[in-house]
């Protein structure tokens, strides 16, 4: 037997959901053959076989969440059992000494496994009542799950139906938003950009990207990563814009790289591809990671202003609402102009109000030009 465990899929992702098995017990596979397709918080990943061999068993079915290091499948092995070697006082074995290093007592700083705190009897009760014990929050000492807790969940499930666990991107969104809410001191500035100078069929998203570049050049600090624990920040040279893309599967934020250096045509084709990939949920891992600033163009749907939520470790996010016609005062006269509502959230732990306002001014200048 040889177990193959869920490998590290990068970016500190701790779990993945099985989408589909491409092999079954009894199959013979070659190295790099596709074994299983899983969905992580960020994308769908195809996991290849690390070796050639026959599959003895697969663990988990579609929809199951597997954690990092848990076995995915088992290969059949042809190794024979080593028998115990017993003899008269066995003399020095020729093999190298494997016992030179040992630890007095326990290893330092062992990783803590997050056990569900429930006695075997409670686990059995949960199984009998068909309650998933991992969904039960314990009311006892240090979160110990008690009979009442299991019964409460069982009752709730029978009355209101089962709860739906958050998976994939929706789960990631939930965690990222909670983290942001808990840590970031966000302030939002709202303003309108008057688009009187725009051509008839101006590409709004492209213009927003260009405006972000101009604003980042005016106030580079908003294009930074912030580490509150270390009290450090990194002002970043390239501008990699995270593009919030709404899909039926949830919110994806693929990254458009080095926006400042790319041509309009290149950016547009990049945008189209990102969108297509997001809808298919098949985004290359390197395009899912590490934006330096985020753009949410919810104006393609509905809404005027918002208080967009900053995704750590970035420090700013810009949201654009629906472009509307509005009566504006231009040189003392009323004039109807198309107007784009803008909402800029910034992390006030790093960015000052002045820096953010100047960023907004540069944005507007670029958009109104």
């Amino acid at each position, binding site marked *: 037997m040889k177990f193959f465990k869920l490998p590290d899929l990068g970016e500190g992702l701790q779990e993945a959901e099985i989408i589909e098995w491409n092999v079954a017990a009894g199959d013979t596979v070659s190295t790099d053959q596709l074994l299983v397709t899983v969905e992580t918080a960020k994308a769908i990943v195809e996991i290849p076989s690390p070796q050639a061999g026959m599959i003895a068993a697969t663990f988990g079915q579609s929809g199951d969440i597997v954690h990092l290091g848990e076995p995915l499948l088992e290969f059949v092995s042809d190794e024979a*059992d080593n028998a115990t070697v017993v003899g*008269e006082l066995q003399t*020095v074995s020729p093999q190298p*000494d494997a*016992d030179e290093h040992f*630890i*007095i007592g326990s290893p330092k700083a062992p990783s803590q*496994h997050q056990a569900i705190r429930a006695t075997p009897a409670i686990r059995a009760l949960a199984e009998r009542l068909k309650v998933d014990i991992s969904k039960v929050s314990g009311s006892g000492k240090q979160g110990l799950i008690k009979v009442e807790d299991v019964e409460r969940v069982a009752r709730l499930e029978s009355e209101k139906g089962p709860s739906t666990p958050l998976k994939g991107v929706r789960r990631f969104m939930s965690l990222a938003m909670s983290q942001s809410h808990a840590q970031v001191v966000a302030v939002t500035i709202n303003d309108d950009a008057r688009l009187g100078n725009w051509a008839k069929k101006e590409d709004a998203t492209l213009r927003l990207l260009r405006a972000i570049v101009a604003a980042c050049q005016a106030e580079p600090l908003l294009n930074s990563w912030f580490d509150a624990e270390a009290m450090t920040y990194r002002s970043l040279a390239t501008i990699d814009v995270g593009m919030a893309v709404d899909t039926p599967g949830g919110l994806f934020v693929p990254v458009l790289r080095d926006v400042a250096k790319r041509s309009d045509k290149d950016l547009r084709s990049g945008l189209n591809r990102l969108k297509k990939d997001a809808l298919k949920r098949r985004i290359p891992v390197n395009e899912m990671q590490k934006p330096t600033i985020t753009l949410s163009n919810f104006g393609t749907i509905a809404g005027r202003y918002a208080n967009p939520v900053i995704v750590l470790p970035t420090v700013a996010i810009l949201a654009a609402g629906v472009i509307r016609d509005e009566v504006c005062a231009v040189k003392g006269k009323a004039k109807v102009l198309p107007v784009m509502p803008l909402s800029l959230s910034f992390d006030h732990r790093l960015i000052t109000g002045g820096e953010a306002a100047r960023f907004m001014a540069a944005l507007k200048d670029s958009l109104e030009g």
Partner: protein
Amino acid sequence: MNVSFSTTDGLATDSATALDERPSAEMQIESKECVLVEAINMALHYEMAHDASVVVLGEDVATNGGVFRATLDLKQAFGAERVRDTPLAEGLIAGLSVGMATQGLKPVAEIQFMGFMFAALEQLICHAARMRNRTRGRLTCPLVVRMPFGGGIHAPEHHSESTEALLAHIPGLRVVIPSSATRAYGLLLGAIRDPDPVIFLEPKRIYRAQAQSICNDGQALPLDTCFTLREGEDVTLISWGALISECTQVVEQWHEQGISVELIDVATVSPLDMATILQSVAKTGRCVIAHEAPKTGGIGGEIAAQLAEHALLDLKAPVLRVGGYDTVMPYAKKEALYLPGVAEISNAIEQVLAFG
């Protein structure tokens, strides 16, 4: 603490730079390739040379150097006064040791085989173990009784038992079992320096099984702690003595299969260092205990009971014991059937992994 006894040579080489040709302190400490029984002999030589109150006694220990040669050359080095052959009388050996220990000597007695210890138990249990308590601390009993124990060497009756649990049950006796040459050296020094009685059980099956480079620096190992031989995440495997070598093979086998097993050598089986064991099981949630002694009433049962008391909520599977059968230790021919081996231990690990 990651103990390494192999670095001394490296240190000495590194420090012998052109700037200073004088031998460093490290270079003067001798490092030697030793098997377990030679490590015991080296520790005895070291401590007798450094502490004049250490004396050695037992059957054939002086002129002959001991049946397994553990006391080789001690008489030549330290004289017949300090290294004494005794009659074939274990009660006398133990009684003599109790008398010497209470009056300022540090006797290291040898019982030739553990199966011969029963005549000595009255002295050890009724006197050595309780001397400190009986005299309200006025007298202590710093003796060491060394006994080769365990099976696997095709020996006759009374030469193969593992009755460590009998001794572990007696409050006041510390029971120590090394599982490698390195630990035998450090633990025996610790045992001789301990102010109370220590039973030092030597796994004779591995007396000459594996040589290690040991630095003869007189460094003792603590007698109140387990040793973590391998770090792992999935299962805790607990053992002691000769069986550690089988356990190491089991760890390797499972490692090849992607399962990481934490291997703990209990070393001091009484009193038990449960803190290390509990910390490991809190991490892995699964535990297998392997010992050569019969399962019933064995130390594995005590460890399992303590895990049930203190680690219930950490456990993902029942604690399993792998042990000898509850029978009289068979003669040489059937010995291999009795002794737990790689297959049995591995099977228990598979069971706790499969439990869920």
